[in-house]
């Protein structure tokens, strides 16, 4: 049994969203996704929310999920993971044969969380990891280890920032488009050397909702629109004991890639995939993830066409969801000003951010003939 994307909704990302409660923000994205899917909430079999307690400000935050999705008294649960893990969970749910349609949701009200670094510091191991300084210290150590062990330089990291922020200018849903010079990035305000302020994705508010359906159901409801199928999902985690983790690579990405590629029948990412959405929460991480997928500078035109998290913002668990939203729109040819030509297969990658190395991958395919890709275009 296969699974396809029936509909997507995204509120857009903003530095703040005053005037909308989190419920109203999510409801906006949900309404959009249901309309896109041509389905009413009452027809949907179940829901998965993706969120973390101390970001929402609630304990056991799943309590506050069903109402704004129109899913009261339906099968609903929360995955505290990357949005793409929520997608993977929903796919498995459908593949049991017990569910035909499942909706997946995540949101960020980052502007309502007053000390985000304090929350992040609270994620570190209380016995070994909370050093009482900026939690970005681990990004500094990680970037240093990566640069020591790879052939990349700090200039490559800076170029990730300038490129992604510039690309976001063409994306009307991205709040952080902008032209920066390499000097702006490398000599900007230091946070934890060699990481500077602009190498860290800035937070944003927003909600994203995706409706998934069994292939057969999706075909029935496609109504002549291109069907985007999920042909592979994978996720993985390196050890939570940071002291024993290889900080120069992303084991989580490698595990996720292996699972997803095996399922989708992909052997070589560069030649078989048209578009890549790679996590760039910290700029150096895009390079770490490119290495994991075997991508080189030649592939850069096909990487993060939406502007990445550096351009779209860090929406906590929703971050990779808004990237998936863009991927689906690209594969349908609905991306507008930043539409990439000939995009028929896309890879979306998510990383949960520090202190983790938990990553997830989904492969999306529109089913059209592949050939031209973003690079050729």
């Amino acid at each position, binding site marked *: 049994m296969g699974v396809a994307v029936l509909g997507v909704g995204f509120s857009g990302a903003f530095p703040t969203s005053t005037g909308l409660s989190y419920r109203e923000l999510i409801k906006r994205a949900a309404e959009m996704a249901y309309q896109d899917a041509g389905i009413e909430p009452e027809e949907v079999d179940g829901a998965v929310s993706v969120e*973390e307690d101390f970001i929402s400000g609630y304990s056991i935050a799943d309590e506050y999920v069903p109402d704004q999705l*129109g899913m009261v008294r339906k099968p609903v649960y929360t995955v505290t993971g990357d949005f793409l893990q929520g997608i993977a969970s929903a796919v498995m749910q459908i593949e049991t044969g017990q569910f035909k349609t499942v909706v997946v949701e995540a949101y960020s009200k980052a502007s309502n969380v007053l000390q985000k670094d304090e929350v992040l510091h609270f*994620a570190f191991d209380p016995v*070994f990891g909370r050093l009482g300084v900026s939690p970005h210290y681990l990004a500094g150590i990680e970037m240093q280890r990566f640069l*020591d062990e790879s052939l990349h330089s700090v200039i490559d990291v800076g170029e990730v920032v300038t490129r992604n922020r510039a690309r976001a200018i063409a994306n009307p849903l991205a709040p952080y488009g902008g032209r920066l010079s390499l000097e702006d990035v490398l000599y900007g305000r230091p946070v934890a050397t060699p990481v500077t302020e602009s190498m860290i994705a800035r937070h944003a508010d927003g909600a994203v909702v995706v409706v998934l359906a069994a292939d057969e159901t999706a075909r029935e409801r496609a109504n002549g629109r291109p069907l985007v199928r999920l042909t592979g999902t994978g996720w*993985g985690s390196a050890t939570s004991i940071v002291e024993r983790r290889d900080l120069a690579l992303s084991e989580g990405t490698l595990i996720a890639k292996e699972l997803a590629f095996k399922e989708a029948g992909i052997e070589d990412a560069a030649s078989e995939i048209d578009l890549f959405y790679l996590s760039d929460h910290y700029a150096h991480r895009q390079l770490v993830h490119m290495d994991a997928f075997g991508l080189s500078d030649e592939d850069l035109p096909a990487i993060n066409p939406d502007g990445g998290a550096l351009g779209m913002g860090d929406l906590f668990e929703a971050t990779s969801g808004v990237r998936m939203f863009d991927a689906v729109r690209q594969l349908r040819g609905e991306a507008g000003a930043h539409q990439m030509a000939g995009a028929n297969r896309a890879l979306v990658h998510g990383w949960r951010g520090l202190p983790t190395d938990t990553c997830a991958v989904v492969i999306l395919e529109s089913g059209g003939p592949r050939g031209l890709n973003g690079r050729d275009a």
Partner: protein
Amino acid sequence: MSRVAVIGAGMTRFVRRAEESSGELAARAVEMALEDANLDIDDIECVIQGTAPDAFDGVHMKGEHLIAGSGGSGKPYMRHFVGGGTGVFSPIHGWMHVASGKFKNCLVVCEEKMSPCVPHPAGAFLTIFDHTTEQPLFLTLIHIFAIEMARFMHAYGYTEEELAQISVNNKRNAIDHPAAQVAEDLTVADVMNSTLLSWPVKRYDISPTSDGAVAIVLSNERVARHHCKAPVFIDGVGYRLDTAYWCTRDLAYPQYVAMAARDAYKMAGIVKPEDEIDVWEPYDPFAYKALHHMNGLLMDKTGRKVRELFDSGAFARDGSHPMCPSGGALGVGNPIAATGLMKIAELYFQLSGQAGKRQVKRHAHRGIAQAWGDLMQVGTVVVMSGDGSLPIRKTPWSERTKDDLVGTAIKNVKEVPHTTYEPNLTYAWDDGYALTTYLDGFKQGKIRGSRCSECGRMMIPARSFCELCNLRHVDRYYDLPDTGTVETYTLSHVDWSSAMLPDGQVNIFAVVAIDGAADQMGLVHRLGGVDPKDVHIGMRVKAVWKPAAERTGTVTDLEYFRPLAKDEDKGEIATVPVKPVEVDTLSAKTASGKIPLSYAYTAGLGGRKFYEDLAKGVLTGTYCEESDTVLVPPAAFCERGMHALDPNADSRTLDEGLGSVMAVTKVYEDRAGHLLDEPVYVVQVEFTEPGIHGSVFGRLDLDGHDPEDIYPGMPVAVVPLSLEGNRTGPECVRFRPL
């Protein structure tokens, strides 16, 4: 769809406060489950973790923190939750992993370490309530349980003494459970005479707070048949989540449990559950909940079936419908998520004939486990069966006693090296469109609702869409009367953190159905101006508002509801249309909030060794024979092989001269993002001795050295720390250049 079976189980003891860290508890449960399933961690294809709020263990992204202890390192790993329903949802999520065909097996782990949370783990429950409309009232779980219990007793006619019998039965059953924390042979009088916390709830009506972990191994049928003599199959699953507006629900009958049960029965092909199920493990965090849930599991809103079974003694372990033969949450303990999985493990033991002294007398072929939680809104249900009625067997599990399980109970965290921590978690939540108008009503001394034009419900709190009508837009707002009727209530002697109120003080919380709102559309608030003994369900009440000049547009502008005198109650209900507040930069409001918790963490067995040695000025690791490596920092388990290590017996001292900087970063901000007066250097230190796996992070004291001279490979030594009062923590870990 593949059939999915439980083929192994493991658990720790449930204790009030464990010395072991969260990960160490999980790791020991995993080791035992793998052994029971005759598998190695390398055989496991994926791992899932079910654990409820992060506020208990005191770690943001708790699931990530638990990866190593759960056996998830280097694997597909995912955490999920549905509040207190998590424990029984966990095998459902695991079932998805296997039944989908994506994996052949799945390790399911549930852990909860509630003890780090101070002043009391119950305080964490303040943060489950709506931050804008309910948290300002300082509610906790005991309050709403009591509110629900009062409604349940009112609707079904159970007495407090009858409900106390459930506690007596379960605590007695738990005497035979090796993990049990509060097994006792009590009488109904003992329960009735225990401290009254929040009428009608008394101390012995409640399960304890606990630390503990449980793990099970799920596999597809082929693997199960190969590895397990008596696999127990998951036949049906169901889970349903009701609205977050809990005051709008029928609190006496858990419709969401009944719906989840119906889903599970349909999948399992069960038509008449009371005749087809042999073992029942409903969730019993409070005594009344077992019967409350049994009504749902039997899908009987009249409650007659459960009443008959209860009166006939059928729920005894040797009765016709054995209920909670494990001892349940009331007897075994309640490390929330782990409790639900303990119930699944109990079905596995019972249905495979290895429950030992707890084995039910009735030939057990099929069993059901259920959990519940969130804001009294989620039901999770699993139906399981063995291959026919299996013979009773002697296995390690049938013989185990508490001495065979790990879990070191300590009375006070100060007995061992520990870290205290106070997170500064502050928020300003946008009220948004509908709540801005609703809270503006409070400022005007009005209760405001909004009406859905499709279903016609007048809803409070006012909302901008209808959750029951496909998210239909709602834009008609009304002022309602500030009078209503008490639907249910509690007379409370405890505050939000479970501390007893001063003698003589009673806080009365009630769900009040507001006049003019839809049926059962209530709000929770305080009652006042009334003798507690005069409060009753059905009492008419009226709001008492603060003086207009003191109102700020929050729910506490309404001080309390007082009794409504008969001559005031004219029976006229006027709803007045109002124009909603136009939200602009000035009128948009936020509700401020802070999570009022702090934490005291034990260092765990590995951490204890680390800090005790650091106090002597040495760094140590733990030798793992299987991998022939020394793990740094010291560890009580090896995350590669998921087997136990002894940080003391297997300790290896690291040569001071071999520590060197692996990477260094100059940090300019404090933990909250404020600029530091002076940057701090943080180093990752490695040890070049062969066979060492790991490193240590700490601050670098420059000790007069030029910062420019710090380089990877630079030799460093650890600075000894003080272990006075057993207080310690990562901020104390410092290195100096050699």
